[in-house]
Structures are given as structure tokens and as C-alpha cells.
């Protein structure tokens, strides 16, 4: 056991952990931040995506020790300071970009990762950036639309509701 310290959603946190503790387990079990989910064990589904030092990573495929000292952002830190939904979150609600909600934290985090480097992505760029995030409910239509809308693009012409 070593004590691991990192900055999560702007707060310094620390907890003891075994060497084989994954970042996702550290967040969920030690910090009780259960918004980050585990949907697979082969690093494919993306339900566990968080940001480490400003870039998206799969927290199920990174050891907590490797994130020691890092800035980590999770879904719990994505709302505005007053608790209202952030821009991406609000777009997901407005355009029905989620159903069961299980993949949603990862989707919001990967969307934020995309918009940081590409503020007005095309539909294809969005779909490509979602390659490592699987949703079984929405058929992606409304996720793509929500991300376009969150980037300030007009989605009124996008097919259907």
C-alpha cells in the first residue's frame, strides 16, 4: 500500500492503494466517485473515460499510481460552478443524447476532449472521435447531434428530431 495523491476535479485528494489499483477503481472505490463506469475489461467500451492532465484516457487501463500527482477530471466535475449542467451536458439533455445513462459519463468526457482540440468538428470527425466509446441505446444519432450543438453548430437541418 502506498498513499496516492492527485488533484481530482480541482480538489487535492489522497488515499492508500495497492500497486495493482486501476485509476477507475481508485476513483470509484476510494474516492466514491461512482459516475465513472466500467463496461468492459478489454479497454474498448469507453464508459470509464476521464481526463488526466487535460487529455482523455480510459481509467480502466491506467494504474492509479501512474496518475499520482496528476490533474484528473471526471464526470462529477463537468457541471457549472452553480451546479447547473455544463454546455455539453445540457446539449446531451436537449438533444436526447442518452438513454440508460451508463455510457454517458464516458461520452461526455470524450466529447469534451474532442471540443477542446477541435471546437467545430464535422459529423465525421465526431464519429471518428467516438471510436472508443460504445453506446448500445441511442444508435449514436443524438449523441452526434448533441456534440454538434454543444460546439455551437446549427443542427436544425439534421435529420429527424
Amino acid at each position, binding site marked *: 500500500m502506498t498513499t496516492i495523491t492527485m488533484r481530482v476535479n480541482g480538489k487535492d485528494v489522497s488515499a492508500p492503494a495497492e500497486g495493482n489499483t486501476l485509476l477507475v477503481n481508485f476513483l470509484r472505490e476510494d474516492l466514491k466517485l461512482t459516475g465513472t463506469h466500467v463496461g468492459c475489461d478489454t479497454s474498448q467500451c469507453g464508459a470509464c473515460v476521464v481526463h488526466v492532465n487535460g487529455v482523455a484516457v480510459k481509467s480502466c487501463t*491506467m494504474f492509479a499510481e501512474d496518475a499520482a500527482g496528476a490533474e484528473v477530471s471526471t464526470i462529477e466535475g463537468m457541471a457549472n460552478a452553480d451546479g447547473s449542467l455544463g454546455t455539453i451536458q445540457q446539449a446531451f439533455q436537449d438533444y436526447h443524447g442518452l438513454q440508460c445513462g451508463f455510457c454517458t459519463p464516458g461520452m461526455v468526457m470524450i466529447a469534451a476532449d474532442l471540443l477542446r482540440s477541435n471546437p467545430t468538428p464535422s459529423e465525421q470527425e465526431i464519429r471518428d472521435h467516438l471510436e472508443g466509446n460504445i453506446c448500445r441505446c441511442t444508435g449514436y444519432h443524438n449523441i452526434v447531434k448533441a456534440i454538434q450543438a454543444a460546439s455551437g453548430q446549427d443542427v436544425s437541418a439534421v435529420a429527424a428530431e
Partner: protein
Amino acid sequence: MYAFDFVKAASVEEAVSALASGEAQALGGGQTLIPTLKARLADPGTLISLAHIDSLKFVRAGDGMVEIGGGTTHATVAAETAQTYPGLADLAGRIGDPSVRNRGTIGGSLANNDPSACYPAAALGSGATIVTNSREIAADDFFEGMFATSLEEGEIVTAVKFPIPEKSHYEKMAQPASRFPLVAVFVAKFADGVRVAVTGASNDGVFRWAEAEKALSADFSVAAVQELKHSDDDMIADLHGTAAYRAHLIGVMTRRAVAQMV
């Protein structure tokens, strides 16, 4: 996962000496190793994380060469070689998915030599040199079959030197589930000839397609490889593709790569 000690090496020297002691294993970005550990298919007593060795993270260009530190992530390679070696940047920018590219490293990928990985095609196709803590190895001597390389126990890939070709292109047909290459071909045109490296196809891992290299070196055109067929001997056959299909795709991917370059 089995229990193990986790050691964060601060330098290559520290990592090498830690690896020398018993059942330690090096951890790069972990994008292959961590799923393997979760499945309890590996049981290292100690994991030596290379993620904090700053000297392994760099991209330097000069003298017709791009040199990349072994601990450099795919995302960094994609961003920082876009101007100097666009064919390599494009390949790196399509490995795995965005989150994987932010962790996975070039050194880790080459050392693992997955028969369906992308980077081995770039290294072999470019005629790169793999630099380790103890020596330099030509790509032609580095890859020794599926998951096998000429690395010694405890040897760490510290850098890769890529000669920059006049033109290059990587054409990938993704396996529908894993999205690893079902077959992918890296074509690099140098002043003194053309190199064609194929990944995903062979039971022996990445390889050069000599006939295509010869034809393209003589006449760099789609027509030069139009009728060329690769043999299906020793091709991987699985539920995603027969040996014959993979052999066929080698031709298709090669022609498409060339078509992008002429």
C-alpha cells in the same frame, strides 16, 4: 489482477536495473499489458512504469530523419510529425481510439509486436532503426514473428529513428470487432526504392512484400501492382477472414496506398 509491486522508474538506468532483478516487467502505456493483467494472463512480481521517464518522450526531426522517444504517445506522434512525416502521423493518429492514443506508446507497441498492430508496419516500411538502452537494431532485424522481437530480457526501446521517405501512405482495413488491422499496408517511397510493409495478415507478424517493392521501385504506379497477388501461405485465418481473403486484401490495400501517393 495478481498482486505486484509498482515501481515508477525515474530514468532509463533505473528501469533497466529494476528489470534486471527477477520477475519484473516494463509497463509502457499499458494499453495491451493492462488488459492482459486483468485477464490474469501475466503475473509479474513487479511492474516498472516507464511513464515518468521524461527522456523517453520526445519527437525530433532533422537530417532526413524523425527520431521519436520510446515513451512518446501515439497522440503526440500524430501531432508532432504531421509536418515532417505525414504518413507516419496519419498512421499514429488512427491507432486504437483517441483515449488509447493518449496512453499507448511507440516503444510499447514495437516491443509487443502484435501481429495486427500498426506501428510495426511503419517501422519496417520506413526502414527505421530501433534504439534500446544498449544498442541500435535495424527494423529488418527487429521483428521476429508474432509477439516476438530481438529484444533481450529487460531491454527497453528508448527511441525509434525513422528515415523520412519522399512519400508514404498507410492503408488499413479494420477488423470489424477489435478495429485492429485485418490487413494494413504501409508503402514508403524513398529516393533509392520503395518499401512495402504488411501487418495483420501473416502468422509471422509484420513483413515486407518483396514483389511489390520490386515492382514499385521500377515503376511507382498502381498499374505496376495491379496484377500482383500475394500468396495465401501462412496467412492468418480466423473468423474475420480466411487466408485467401487476407492475401487478397494485401493487394487491395497496397494499390490503394499507392493510388494515394501518385
